[in-house]
C-alpha cells in the first residue's frame, strides 16, 4: 500500500470548497538556545492542507513538536519560516474564530459551568446566551450541571465544559491538544465516541494532537504522522473506515501498523 505524503499539495482534494480551510506552508520552528546553548530546530518544512469540516489528527512521539505545530497553527507561536493561512487569511495571533482546547484544561475554576460555556458570548443578549449555553451543555451531556463549579466535576466533565465553551462561540476551527490525555481509559473511550457524534452534528474543522495512535485511528479522517525532532511530515494516512470503528478489525490494524511504520516503529505480532 502506498502512503500519501503531503510534500506536494493537492488543491483538488478538498471537494466541497475551492480552498482548504487550513493551509500550512513550509512551516519551520526554531527555538533560540538557552544561556548561549545551540538553537533547537523543532519543526521543518511542514506542509499540510486541511479541508473544511475535516477531522485531522497529528501523531508523533513525545517531544517531537506536535504541540508546537498546533500552537503555530493557532497563532500562539509565530513560525520562524513559512506561514499558516486559515480561510485564506494569514494567521498572526489567536482569534475567537479558532478555539484552542488545552491539554491541561482551560476552564476557569472561578466560574460555574454555565458561566464558563458563556465566556465567549459577550455580544449576545442574555436570552440568546442562555439558549446557546443550554444547547451546547445538552450536546456534551452536562444538562443539570449549570451551577456547579469545575472542581465539583470529574476530569472528563471538565473537558466536556471546555468543548461546549469552544462550540458555543461558533468557531471555524477547533484545536485540541491531547485533550483526553489525563482521563482514565473508559472516560477516554466515551469522550472519543461523543466527540465524533458532536463533530458530525456541528461539522467543525478539528485539528487534534495526540500521541495515542489508537485514538488517532478512531477519530480522524486523516492522520498526519510527524517524525523525530526536527519534525517533518513523515506520512499523511487517510482513514476511510466507517465509524464507529472497531479496534480489532483487520483494516483497523493495517492502518495502525502503517502509522507505526511511518513513525519508524514496529509492533511484533
Amino acid at each position, binding site marked *: 500500500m502506498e502512503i500519501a505524503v503531503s510534500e506536494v499539495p493537492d488543491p483538488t482534494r478538498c471537494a466541497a470548497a475551492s480552498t482548504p480551510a487550513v493551509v500550512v506552508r513550509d512551516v519551520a520552528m526554531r527555538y533560540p538556545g538557552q544561556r548561549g546553548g545551540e538553537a533547537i530546530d523543532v519543526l521543518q518544512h511542514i506542509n499540510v492542507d486541511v479541508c473544511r469540516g475535516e477531522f485531522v489528527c497529528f501523531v508523533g512521539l513525545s517531544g517531537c513538536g506536535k504541540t508546537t505545530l498546533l500552537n503555530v497553527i*493557532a497563532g500562539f507561536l509565530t513560525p520562524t519560516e513559512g506561514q499558516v493561512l486559515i480561510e485564506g487569511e494569514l494567521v498572526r495571533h*489567536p482569534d*475567537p474564530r479558532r478555539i*484552542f482546547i488545552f491539554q*491541561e484544561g*482551560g476552564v476557569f*475554576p*472561578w466560574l460555574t459551568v454555565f458561566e464558563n460555556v458563556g*465566556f465567549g458570548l459577550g455580544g449576545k443578549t442574555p436570552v440568546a446566551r442562555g439558549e446557546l449555553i443550554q444547547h451546547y451543555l445538552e450536546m456534551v451531556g452536562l444538562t443539570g450541571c449549570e451551577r456547579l463549579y469545575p472542581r465539583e466535576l470529574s476530569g472528563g466533565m471538565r473537558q466536556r465544559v471546555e468543548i461546549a465553551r469552544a462550540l458555543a462561540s461558533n468557531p471555524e476551527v477547533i484545536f485540541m491538544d491531547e485533550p483526553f490525555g489525563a482521563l482514565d481509559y473508559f472516560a477516554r473511550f466515551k469522550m472519543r465516541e461523543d466527540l465524533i457524534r458532536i463533530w458530525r452534528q456541528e461539522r467543525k474543522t478539528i485539528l487534534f494532537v495526540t500521541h495515542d495512535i489508537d485514538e488517532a485511528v478512531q477519530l480522524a479522517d486523516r492522520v498526519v504522522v510527524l517524525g523525530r525532532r526536527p519534525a517533518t511530515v513523515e506520512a499523511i494516512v487517510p482513514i476511510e473506515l466507517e465509524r464507529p470503528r472497531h479496534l480489532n478489525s483487520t483494516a483497523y490494524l493495517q492502518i495502525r501498523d502503517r502509522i507505526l511504520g511511518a513513525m519508524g516503529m514496529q509492533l511484533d505480532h
Partner: protein
Amino acid sequence: MTVSAEKAGLRSAVILPLGVAGVFLLTWDVVVRFSGSELFPKPFDVGKGLVELFQKGLLFKYVVASLFRVTWGFALAVLVGVPGGLALGWFRRAHEAFNPLIQGLRPISPIAWIPLAILWFGVSDAAPIFLIFLASVFPITVAAAAAVKNVPTVYLRAARNFGLSPQQLFGRVILPATLPQILTGLRIALGVAWLVVVAAEMIAVNSGLGYLIIDSRNAGKRYDLVVAGMIMIGVIGWLLDLLMRQMERIQAVGWAYGNRGE
C-alpha cells in the same frame, strides 16, 4: 448525621476546648497561690480588673482606639498594596525595578520605625497608623504580586484566544484568579497589624490597648489590668481573624477554598 455522631461532634467542638481552658485557668490559679506572689494576679483578679475597666469606660474606649488605628493603617495598606502588587506581578520590568527595594525594606520590623514615626508624626494617631501601614503593606504587596505570577498560563492563553481586551483580561481573569491568594495575604497582614498596634501604642500614643498595658504597669504595678489588657488583645485578634476567615466563604473566592455552601 446520627445522634451519636452529633454528640461526638459537640464533644470535640465545645466540651474539649472548654475543658482545656478550665484546666489552664485552674493551673494558673494554683501556681500563683503556691508561689505566694504579691504582684502576679490570679484569674479571678483579672476578671475583676476587666469589670473595673468596663465600669470606668476605659475598656470600650481603648478597644475602639486600637481598632480605629488598625482600620486606617490597614485600609491604606490595602489601597497601596493590592494595586501595587498586581502591577508588580504583571509588569516584569516593574518587578525587577522595585523588588530589591521591597525585599530590603520588608525585614525591618515596624517596631524599628517607631523613632522615625514619632519624629515625623509626633505623639498622635498618625504615628501608629503609619506603623500599621508599614507592617501590613509588604505582606499584601508580596501576596498580590505572587498571586498574579501564579495565574496558570493556560487561563491567560484561553482568555487571549477569546479575544479579551486588556481591561477585560484584568476584570474577567486576573482579578478573579488572584482574589483568593490576595485574601490570604490580607488575613496575614491583618494579624501582623494587630501585633504592631499594641507595640506602637506602648510608645507613641496615650490610648489604646497597648497603652493600657504599659500604663497599668507604670502607674501602680496593676498587673491584673496588664493581664486583662492582654486578654482583650487576644480575644479581639481572634475575632479579626474569624472575620477574615468568613470572607473566604464569599462566592468570588469560595471556589479556591472548597467550602462553598451547598
